[in-house]
């Protein structure tokens, strides 16, 4: 019996010539709400697509519930909520869910159940086109919940929602986790980090930290999750820049020069120099690739990665 719902080994994803995810090792334990946080373009959506099995993977393996990601038996056990609502605008909410339930092989009664759970009963007969963004989002979530999947992969489920709706959704997530569902939730709203059991912080296709919200705050000494996150991202960016500089002037450590020599890509290749060799990521897994001071830097210093609130495009 495996304890990890998701395991990746050396996962590499390329989009065009760009390496979006570079040799990623990752483990997600069962029955938790795992937050996948990172700035825009850090590879969160790509990683989720790889876990669901709809992403072309260049190298490495992704194992979900003990099977290769995307294999036929998993399609009924993994629920996926894409970033856009992904529902039929010209069908009513109920008709949308009925259709997805029939495709999933879930009993029709479950439609009413998920409607209730996502607080959409009042909108059930409305055409999806007429819904607000938040309502459409919840229909999408409801569709992903059909068939009681063991793993729910939710890509920015709370984006564009007001704080009240966001809190409601997190209550739903918590409730699902309590019934044994594992949730992988991406977000770039850092305040949501504190609602997760575990956090995976991503930057440029790499998981730079794997820790609990408490550890995040403790290790950085920051007041809020957002501040803590920024300090980690900026420290990481600075490390990457240092490594690049060192390599440029030829005084880098052996591993740095080696990494530059073996790989033709830009930043990810350079950063690979400091990659931990052990795939172990069990908490407390805060894994700095170089020693760094945990004091938050000034925002201006990390300017190029300051856009943590931006929209992520896949």
């Amino acid at each position, binding site marked *: 019996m495996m304890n990890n719902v998701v395991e990746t080994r050396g996962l590499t994803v*390329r*989009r065009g010539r760009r390496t979006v995810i570079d040799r990623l090792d990752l483990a997600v334990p069962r029955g938790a709400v795992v937050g996948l946080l990172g700035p825009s373009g850090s590879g969160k959506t790509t990683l989720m697509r790889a876990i*669901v*099995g*709809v*992403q*072309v*993977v260049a190298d490495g393996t992704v194992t979900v519930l003990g099977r290769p990601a*995307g294999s*036929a038996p998993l*399609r*009924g056990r*993994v629920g*996926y909520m*894409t*970033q*856009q*609502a*992904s*529902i*039929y*605008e*010209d*069908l*009513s909410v109920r*008709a949308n869910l009925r*259709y*997805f339930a*029939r*495709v*999933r*092989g879930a009993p029709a009664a479950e439609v009413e159940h998920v409607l209730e759970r996502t607080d959409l009963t009042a909108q059930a007969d409305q*055409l999806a086109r007429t819904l607000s963004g938040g309502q459409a989002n919840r229909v999408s979530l409801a*569709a992903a919940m059909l068939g009681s999947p063991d793993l729910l992969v939710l890509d920015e489920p709370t984006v564009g929602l007001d704080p009240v709706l966001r809190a409601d959704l997190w209550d739903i997530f918590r409730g699902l986790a309590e019934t044994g569902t594992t949730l992988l939730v991406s977000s770039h709203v850092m305040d949501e980090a504190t609602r997760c059991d575990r956090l995976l912080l991503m930057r440029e296709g790499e998981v730079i930290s794997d820790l609990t919200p408490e550890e995040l705050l403790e290790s950085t000494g920051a007041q809020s999750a957002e501040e803590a996150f920024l300090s980690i991202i900026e420290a990481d960016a600075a490390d990457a820049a240092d490594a690049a500089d060192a390599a440029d002037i030829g005084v880098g450590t052996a591993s740095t020069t080696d990494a530059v020599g073996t790989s033709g890509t830009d930043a990810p290749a350079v950063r690979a120099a400091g990659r931990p060799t052990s795939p172990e990521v069990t908490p407390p897994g805060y894994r700095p690739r170089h020693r760094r001071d945990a004091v938050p830097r000034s925002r201006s210093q990390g300017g190029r990665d300051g856009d943590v609130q931006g929209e992520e495009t896949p």
Partner: protein
Amino acid sequence: MTPRRTLATAGRVLLQIRNDPRTIVLLLVVPSLLIGLVAWIFDETEVFASIGPAMLALFPFIVMFLVTSISTLRERRSGTLERLLSMPMGRGDFILGYTLAFGLLAVVQTSVAVAYATLVCGLEIEGSVGLLFVVAVADALLGTSLGLLASAFARTEFQVVQFMPGLVFPQILLGGIFLPRGQLPGVLEVIGDWLPLSHAIDALTAVATGDEDAGYVWLRVFFIACWVVGAVTVGSLTLRRRTS
């Protein structure tokens, strides 16, 4: 592939169209209007008797081509296709569901068009009306399968609409409506003979005039069916679960 998912998909597509009354009206009325116009232009000549059946072949084909290519493209772009393919949904379920729904729609559309052409415009059908429907449905499925194929090669709605002149017009021009294929230059005649719409036009003309036997018509239907199977096969290969 399971009947449950195929039927669920067909039902869902029909429900989407039912929620769009304007499209229904356009689907049912436009062919009759155009057939009426052609009948009026060639009033008191023999022309309508010869091109009327061919027109019955054009509408299901063109309309289904457009409807399928655009709705499949919409599924690809809206993320619903990705959602379906991450679920236990067979690619065959998806395509067959669409084919079933649009095939049914083609039957209704053809009924209206044939009724109008015969009762109002005075087109005479000498052969079997049942056979006429078989050809019309085959024709609609041809449009559906080619539309599905076209949608795989288009990234935007603008592009997919451009496939209409690209894939459909040559078939109309070389199909023998305007000029019998025998009078075309050699190369074009050969091309025309291999295009599926030519055979739909031949078959419908044969049913209308009653000049040929049922075997002739079925052979043409078989030829169209081969095209449909080919296009659906290639089209289903383009529905990839994994995309980059």
